[in-house]
């Protein structure tokens, strides 16, 4: 029996073998994120006449467990753009801190940040390119930030700008974008209203917000990792309006009655 105080409460070496403290040593191969742990689900966004609407629910899941139910996944950047994060939440929070620093540096360089289109100030298009380079260099180091990100705002010509970047640094832009489950469920609905940039430029703000709300409802019906409380932001040349306490309204689960053949139900 090992009676030394430093062994109290520890598994006995003669039964369990010596404790493997190798994980405490900092030499040896570096561990990078190999899989996302706490995750956020879809982010959806749609361009309209003079801006972009973007939404994401307030849930952070731990596998299938609804772990954190008040997580804000939309982020205001310098009062000119909104960034929506899907994927790993800790990587999102790292990026959030990083972008906060960037915004502060920017504010010092250009003291008057009220106008989103001011020359020399970071607009959504610039921010997208910055995040692309960041994500791509992290993937080149085999240490990715496990997110898919939507960037909503205005470009250098004050036209609505919406783009995506993911953990591999892949980028694309479109009149409507969605990450995760939203790519399958929300994109077809949004494309009905804005297939092209031209069609998007005819949408009013109210129409765009309605379409986004409808998509959030469809996602809540069918995405098991989603929630009925969500954040919704509208970016225009007048700035950013984020509401982080939206609640899905007018839900109808009548369709659920007709779903048969799952779980314990046999007929």
């Amino acid at each position, binding site marked *: 029996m090992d009676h030394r105080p430093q062994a109290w409460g520890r598994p006995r070496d003669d039964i369990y073998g010596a404790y493997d403290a190798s994980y405490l040593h900092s030499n040896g191969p570096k561990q*990078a*994120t*190999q*899989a996302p742990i706490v995750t956020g689900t879809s982010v959806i966004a749609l361009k309209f006449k003079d801006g972009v609407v973007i939404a994401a629910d307030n849930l952070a899941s731990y596998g299938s467990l609804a772990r954190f139910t008040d997580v804000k996944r939309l982020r205001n950047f310098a009062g000119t753009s909104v960034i929506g994060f899907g994927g790993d939440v800790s990587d999102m929070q790292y990026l959030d801190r990083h972008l906060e620093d960037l915004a502060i540096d920017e504010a010092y360089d250009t003291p008057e940040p009220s106008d989103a289109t001011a020359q020399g100030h970071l607009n959504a298009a610039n921010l997208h390119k910055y995040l*692309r380079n960041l994500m*791509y260099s992290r*993937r*080149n180091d*085999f240490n*990715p930030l496990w997110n898919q990100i939507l960037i909503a705002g205005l470009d250098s010509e004050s036209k609505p700008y919406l783009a*995506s970047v993911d*953990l*591999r*640094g*892949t*980028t*694309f*832009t*479109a009149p409507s974008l969605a990450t995760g489950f939203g*790519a*399958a469920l929300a*994109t077809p609905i949004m494309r009905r209203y804005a*297939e092209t940039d031209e069609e998007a430029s005819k949408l009013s703000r109210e129409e765009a917000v309605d379409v986004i709300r409808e998509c959030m409802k469809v996602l809540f019906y069918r995405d098991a990792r989603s929630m009925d409380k969500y954040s919704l932001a509208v970016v225009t040349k007048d700035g950013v309006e984020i509401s982080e306490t939206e609640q899905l309204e007018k839900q109808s689960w009548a369709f659920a009655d007709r779903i048969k053949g799952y779980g314990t139900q046999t007929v």
Partner: protein
Amino acid sequence: MAAMFSQNPIMNGPNYSFNDAPRVNAPEGARQHRFDPYTDNGGSTLAIAGADFAIMAGDTRSTSGYSINSRYSPKVFKIGGTTSDQHDATLVLSVVGFAADGEALKEKLDAICKMYRYRHGKAMSVEACSRKLSMILYQKRFFPYYAYAILGGLDEEGKGAVYSYDPVGSCEREQCRAGGAAASLIMPFLDNQVNFKNQYEPGSGEGHALQERERRPLTRQEVEILVKDAFDGAVERHIEVGDGLQMMVITKEGIEEIYLPLKKD
């Protein structure tokens, strides 16, 4: 890794981008999830050189697995102009495969061409640029840019020039080349229609006595129609190709950009 760049379906299954589930070659039960730095964003490119022009083309669809990311995501870029709007560019680069690598490759080559112009006071020749591109690709031999690049321009004599590459920098000047998801569908069509392969003079004999149809450079109008037909065919038979066709026509007057719609299904 070799199988990754192969177009041979027996080596890595059908060439769809959703084929990137972690491959298990560990002992029974052992399984480790690892980050895969590559994906395939689909799409196809095509380049044809004429007597005094070159046409570079690519579809504008970007895919991830079965979903369409964007219907307008260009793969064909002007390279080496004085400014970012590339109004005085003389070279065109097309990249297809993994879009993030393609974009990075384009940015790098563009920066090098711009530095060359700044230092030498003239645009980079297509020959020089083709060598440089080969170097850039080979420098990442053991973590390659997973992109099939094609470089187009006019050579020193004013003839159309097309240089094609594999992801690690092997390079060849050719009359025509198709790249990307539908390369295997388009290339045989091009062999027949551009290089007149398997075309013989009617009634010139049988077997070895058959005379090949004489090759001649195609006109610009013929090539434009050929490109559209090639893509219409590819769209019909490959799910990752479609939405729009972007064409860059390089002549001594400059680069003309043409956009034509393709089927969106």
